[in-house]
C-alpha cells in the first residue's frame, strides 16, 4: 500500500468535517466538526513527516493540537455563555450579522 492513501483519508475526513460545519446548527457539533477537520490535517502532517523523513510535520501537528485545545476551551466557553443569555446553542439564532 502506498502511504499516500493516508493523505486521501485525511482529505476525505477534512471534507466530511467541512460539510458538517455547514449543515449542522448545534454549535457544539459544529465545534466537533472543526476538531475533525483539524485532526484530518494532523493526519496529513504526520503522513508528510513520514514522507520527508523528518519530524517537523509532527511538531506542526503537535502545535495544531495545542491550538485546537485552546480553541475548544474558548469556543466552549463562548457556547456556554451564549446559551446562558439566549437559551439556545443554535448558530442560526444568532443571525445578528444582518442589519
Amino acid at each position, binding site marked *: 500500500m502506498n502511504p499516500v492513501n493516508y493523505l486521501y483519508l485525511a482529505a476525505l475526513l477534512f471534507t466530511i468535517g*467541512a460539510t458538517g*460545519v*455547514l*449543515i449542522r*446548527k448545534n454549535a457544539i457539533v459544529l465545534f466537533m466538526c472543526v476538531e475533525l477537520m483539524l485532526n484530518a490535517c494532523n493526519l496529513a502532517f504526520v503522513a508528510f513527516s513520514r514522507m520527508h523523513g523528518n519530524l517537523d510535520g509532527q511538531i506542526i501537528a503537535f502545535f495544531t493540537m495545542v491550538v485546537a485545545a485552546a480553541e475548544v476551551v474558548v469556543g466552549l466557553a463562548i457556547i456556554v455563555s451564549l446559551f446562558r443569555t439566549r437559551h439556545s446553542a443554535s*448558530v*442560526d439564532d*444568532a*443571525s*445578528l*450579522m*444582518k442589519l
Partner: protein
Amino acid sequence: MENLIALLIAAPLLGAVVLLCGGRRLDKTGHWLGTLLAAVSFGIGVVLFADMLGRGADDRTLTQNLYTWIPVEGFQADMAFQLDQLSMTFVLLISGVGTLIHVYSIGYMEHDERRRRFFGYLNLFVAAMLLLVLADNYLLLYFGWEGVGLASYLLIGFWQHKPSAATAAKKAFLVNRVGDMGLSIAIMLMFTTFGTFAFGPVFGAVGEASEGKLTAIGLMLLLAACGKSAQVPLQSWLGDAMEGPTPVSALIHAATMVTAGVYLIVRSAAVFNGAPDAQLVVTVVGAVTLLFGAIVGCAKDDIKKALAGSTMSQIGYMILAAGLGPIGYVFAIMHLVTHGFFKAGLFLGAGSVMHGMNDEVDMRKYGGLRKYMPVTFVTFGLGYLAIIGFPGLSGFFSKDMIIEAAFAKGGTEGWILGGVTLLGAGITAFYMTRVMLLTFFGEKRWQPTASDSGSAAGSGHEPHPHESPKSMTVPMVILAFGSVFAGAFFEIGERFLKWLEPVTGYSHGNPPVSAMTVTAATMVMLLVGVGIAWAMYGKRPVPVVAPRGSFLTRAARRDLYQDDFNHVVLVRGGEHLTRSLVYVDHSLVDGVVNGTAASVGGLSGRLRKLQNGYARSYAVSMFGGTAILIAATLLMRAV
C-alpha cells in the same frame, strides 16, 4: 493741465459715492452736494475749454495716462483719457446740461423721500458719461458705456415700487446689453486685427486692415450704437424708459446718454471711412429710425412718450448724418448739441407741466395751459420752434445742414436719404405742433379724479395747474436760451465746423442742389406739417378719450407692433425655452444619472438578499470560494 481730466470724472464720482454710502444723515444736504459736484465738473470743463481754445488747432488734444488697467501678455488696456475737441464738446454738454438738470431736480424731486439717492444716481451717471467720452481706448469706453447703462437702469427704475418702472428698467438694460454684445465683439475684432484697441493705434492702422474686417467692426459698433441710442431694431426700450422721473428723461434719454451711439460712430470715423458698406447700413438704420420715431411720436398721447418718439427720430437724423461720412460727422455732432438743448428743455417743460398737473401725462387731459404756466409755455414754445427748425433757431441750422449733407451724399442714395430727411422734417413739424396744441392751446380738458397714474398727492382732486418753482424754471430758461441761440452761434463763421474738423475731418460732398433749394424745401415741409396739425388739433376741439384712429395711428400707438413682436418671439419663446430646459435638466440630464444610480441600487438590493445574517450561509460562500480558488490554482498548474 491734462491732470485736470481725471478730476472731471472724479468730482461727480465722489458725489455718487458719498451720497449712496452716506446714509440718512445726508438727506437734508445731499442734493446740494450733488449739484455742487456736477457744477465743479462743469467748472473744470470750462477751464479746460478755455485752455484748449488758447492752443492751436493741431495741438489741442490732451492725454492723461493714469495707470495700466488690464495688463496681460499681448493685451493692454490703459486707464487713460484723451481730451480732444470732440470730447470737449461732450464734456461741456454733459456737465453743463447735467448741472442744470441737477438744479431742476432739486425742485422736481422735493417731495421724494429718496431724493438723496436720486442725486447719487445722477452723479454716477455724469461720471460714467464723462468716462465714456474721455476714454482713450475702446475698453475704457465700454466701461463708461455700461456705467451709463447702469445709471440709466437705476434711474428708470427709480420708482421701483411701480412694477412698470422696474420692468422698463430691466428692459432698457437688457436691450442695451444686446448692443453691448456688439461693442464687445467689435473690441475683440479690433484686438485680433490690430493687437490693440486704443484709439490712436487703431485709427493709425486702419489703412492696413482688410475692408471685410473693417466692415465687421463697423457693423458691430453700429449694433452697439443702436442699443444705446435706441435705433431700429433695438429701439423698443426708450418709450418704456419714460417711466423714470422726468429729469432723467431729459438728461439721459434725450440730451446725453442716448446720443452716445452717435459719439461712438463719429469717434470711430476712421473705421467707418474704410468700410463704405458699414456706412451704408448706418445711414439706412438712421433713416428708418428717423421715420419710425417720427411716426410713433405722432400717435402717442402720453406727452413724454411723444417726446421719446421725437428723440428717437432726431437721433435717427444724427446717425444718418454720421453714416454719411466726413460730409456729415460735424453736423451729426452739431445737431446732437442743439438737440441736447432743445430736447432737454422740452422734457423739462413737460416735467413742469406734469408737476403742475398732478403727474398727469395724457395730453388729451391738458389744454389751454399757456395761461396757467407762462414761463413753461414760453420756454417749451421756444424749444418747439427750435426742434421743428423755425428759421433762425438752433434746430433750423443743425437740421438743415444734415438734410443738405444727405443730398450731398450723391447719387440715388443721396436723393433717397435727402427725401427721407425732408419727410422727417415735415412729420417732426406735425407731431411737435400736435404736442404744443394739445398741451397749451384749446380748452382746458382736465377733470377731477382724472389722475389714475399713481400719484398719491392730488388724486381725487381737480388739478390746479400752477407755475413751477424757480429752481425748475431757471434751468428751463437757460436751456431755452441755448435752443434759440446755439445754432446761430455755431453756424456763424462756421465756428463749429472749424472746431471739430481736425478731429472728424470734413468734406463738402457734391450737393446736387443748392443749399437755398434745400432750405426752401424744408420750409415747405415745415409749413405743411404745421398746417396739417393745426387743421387736426387746432381748429377742432380735441376729444378727451382717444378715437380709434386709422390703422397707421393704432400701429404707431403700439410702437408699430415692434413690442408685440418682441413679446411673442423673444419673451414667450424665451419662456418656453427656459421652461423646457429646466425640464430637460431635471428629467433628462439628472434622470440619466439618477437612473444609473437606481439600477445599481436595484442590483445591490438583490445582492443584499445573499447577506441573510446566518453564519453558516457565509461559511458556504467561503467554502465555495475556497473550492473555486483551488480549482483555479489547479487549472493554472494544469495549463
